[in-house]
């Protein structure tokens, strides 16, 4: 069982640091929970992400904590990441994660998911892609859309900060028109690509565009998207996690920026296919949500 990789052999208990013992005893592994996991346990349970090296106050870090808290079965989940600021957090996650070559994340996730289904036919294994907007909307667009066309059973989450943050501020397809960055001094010439609409058109069964301003809403979307991906087909979440550094905000201003954008570029968009809707209704009745 995958959960066993967190169980410490008794001979070594006395030499293990507290954080590792806590991970075994006090993290919300699905197997130990009667109710679905969620963000309400965050204050008093051991989190799967201990620490990170992002800029202080970066909303990506908060959003990733919500995502991790909402995974239906973390011990059976593999997260595929791509290069970018998110990848600064990935080495700190106490789950199996795979860092794929920039842009290749949905192709890599496809392979992993197919092999897992073949290798463990009786266990539900969730494969979740988490990548930035540069990786999703620009350089990995081909692989991302192709995985939707092929109806792969994976969840794709884009942390859309509307910029190539990790390389110092170049415009991406997700940057809004007119935006000026350090390395895009003349301003973006065309409109923000509506990746969520492309995802729906390309065959996703559950698509959302949202900000990470409301933790509960993020957690609900993550849980629903993963359950739908397991049973029905590809799902896509586009979540605004502003790069406070590149747009000149201070560490405590990220939340305000997300709240402002809840009414503007990230005004809620939600698409659920009829099959997915039916399935989610069933999940609710069975207490999986």
């Amino acid at each position, binding site marked *: 069982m995958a959960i066993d990789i*967190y169980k410490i052999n008794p*001979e070594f208990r006395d*030499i293990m640091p507290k954080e*590792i013992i806590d991970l075994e005893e006090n993290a919300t592994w699905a197997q130990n929970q009667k109710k679905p996991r969620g963000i309400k346990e965050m204050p008093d349970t051991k989190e799967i992400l201990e620490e*990170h090296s992002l800029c202080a106050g970066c909303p990506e870090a908060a959003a990733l904590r919500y995502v991790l808290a909402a995974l239906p079965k973390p011990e059976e989940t593999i997260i595929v990441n791509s290069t970018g600021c998110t990848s600064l957090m990935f080495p700190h*996650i106490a789950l199996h994660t795979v860092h794929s070559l920039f842009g290749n994340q949905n192709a890599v996730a496809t392979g992993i998911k197919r092999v897992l289904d073949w290798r463990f036919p009786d266990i539900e294994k969730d494969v979740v892609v988490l990548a930035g907007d540069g990786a999703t909307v620009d350089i990995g667009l081909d692989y991302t859309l192709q995985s939707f066309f092929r109806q792969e059973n994976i969840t794709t989450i884009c942390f859309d900060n509307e910029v190539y943050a990790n390389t110092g501020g170049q415009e991406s397809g997700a940057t809004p028109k007119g935006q000026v960055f350090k390395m895009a001094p003349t301003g973006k010439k065309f409109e923000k690509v509506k990746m969520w609409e492309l995802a729906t058109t390309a065959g996703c069964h559950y698509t959302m565009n949202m900000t990470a301003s409301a933790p509960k809403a993020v957690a609900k979307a993550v849980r629903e998207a993963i359950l739908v991906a397991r049973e029905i087909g590809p799902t896509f979440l586009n979540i605004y996690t502003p790069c406070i550094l590149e747009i000149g905000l201070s560490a405590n201003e990220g939340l305000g920026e997300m709240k402002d954008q809840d009414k503007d570029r990230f005004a809620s968009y939600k698409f659920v296919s009829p099959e997915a809707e039916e399935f989610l209704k069933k999940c609710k009745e069975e207490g999986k949500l």
Partner: protein
Amino acid sequence: MANQGPAYYSPYPTALYEGVSTPVEGKAILLDKEVDEETAMREIAKQMLTKENATIFPGPQVLYSYSDEARKKAALIKEMAEVLNAKMIPMYDYRPKYPKIDAEIEINPNHPNLTIWHNDIKAAIFIGVHCHYANVALKMVRCETDCYTIAMCALSGHEDAMATIRDQHASDLEQFIKIAREVKAELKL
């Protein structure tokens, strides 16, 4: 540091480019010599029993209770530590540490400042450490310290350790413990 040619693509001199490779099945390597397993086990026991601050670094493949083999090995490693009078420092996962690692209490191959306890550990056994991390860590330790490193590997061994034995399963650890007891008696320890 980098000079020229393939050997210098690595910032550290690696054993492979000095002509040392992993042992063939049934054999072990001591420094650059191929020897039989029992000879290697005797030397490993001697090094661990006589060098300062001898330490066993158990890795995830033995620390966690995910298979019968891992559970058996855990009990044997504990026994091995007692026989060798060795300390144990767990290499429980490979996540890098922020803001910085405390080299006093842990080693982590993601940190290039790895020196194992400021070079106070003079003999060390790596066991249950995943190959790719053992490879990196053993190269660093080899280059930056005078620690006698020992790889007790369940697969094909590590040429960058001073001593490497391969295919080490629970029954082989039992054999090693038996030999270590004998060496301990011979050394009157």
